């Protein structure tokens, strides 16, 4: 993927990368002639596709670790549940507890959250409109 400043007919140079933590990626590119900057913004699916190639936009700053992709991206057993989160989950009626647990687990998974806490549950409820769960 390359970026061209059409007005200057110049290849734009990579300037900066940002990972906001919500699964998206932002990378900016600058025209070396006129200084114009454009940003490439990818959604979580597009970011994941780049990640799956084992490459880094902007170049690698440290060598890759053994099994880097596998360790970072394979779900070895789902996110951990803190004591407080487990206690709160136990108060959910048993006939819907599995479904509720899955909703929170999916929420955590999509955001790369390793441990579900009561705070995470509150945030998820607010974001997903799950008041009462």
């Amino acid at each position, binding site marked *: *993927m*390359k970026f*061209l400043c*059409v007005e200057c*007919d110049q*290849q734009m*140079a*990579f300037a900066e990368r940002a990972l906001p933590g919500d*699964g998206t990626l932002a990378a900016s590119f600058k025209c070396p002639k006129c200084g114009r900057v454009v940003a490439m913004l990818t*959604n*979580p*699916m597009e970011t*994941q*596709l780049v*990640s*799956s*190639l*084992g*490459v*880094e*936009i*902007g*170049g*690698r700053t440290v060598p890759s670790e*053994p*099994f*880097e*992709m*596998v*360790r*970072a*991206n*394979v*779900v*070895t*057993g789902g996110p951990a549940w803190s004591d407080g989160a487990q206690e709160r989950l136990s108060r959910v009626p048993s006939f819907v507890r599995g479904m509720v647990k899955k909703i929170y687990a*999916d929420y955590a*998974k*999509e955001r*790369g959250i390793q441990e579900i806490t009561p705070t995470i549950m509150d945030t998820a409820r607010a974001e997903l409109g799950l008041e009462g769960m």
Partner: protein
Amino acid sequence: MRTYYQLTDPDRSGLVDQIGAQRKRVAERLAGVARIVAVMSGKGGVGKSYVTAHLARGLARAGRSVGVLDADLNGPTIPGLLKVPQAPPDQPTAIGLDGVKCISMGQFLEAGAPLAFTGPSAESFVWRGAMEAAALREFLSDVEWGDLDVLMLDLPPGMQRYIELCDILGKAPAVLTVTIPTPESRDAVRRAMRAAVDHGSELLGIVENMVGRDFEGTAADDLAREFATPVLARIPWHPTPDTWAELGARL
């Protein structure tokens, strides 16, 4: 307006160089491996993993240094067959029965847990295949395989993983084909063998598994004739260590 290949300034991301470095790392890791053998079949349930594990053990008992890469990422069975611990492996790689080196997704997953990746669940089919190929590449490049006489690749049913391996390795591996005697197996395996030939793989021969009971047919003989490759072994329902030793000697 200029197009992609007309832009030739150095790319700071160096994505092409990063991919090249990955390929180089695979080649360096496998430099001490004398032979790579993909155990494949177009058919599921014919005993590829069983044959792989026991053949690996047979070769190891005969004094060969052997490694097994479990390329069945979604249904890993090699750790169980070689009795390697189901825990994330540290360097060097796990050692199974009879000293067989092993790497498998099963070492990373909790017992019974399906393979899942972090990431957006919507339209995950778009990136999941690439993730699996990346995992395969890491299994090849991040294990200290050292000097091996044989590295066996236990493939899942179908051709997708074989094609990924050809790409990652940069060349088609030699292929050992496993079938059961039935015509249904023969027809599925034929497609896989044809694909292997089309990609340039050397066909080492055919192992006919589960011979002597309910499965009837002449799959191995038919395929051997059609592809001009030998039937290396007919494995009975209760093979002995000698069965695997003889197969190893013929390989």
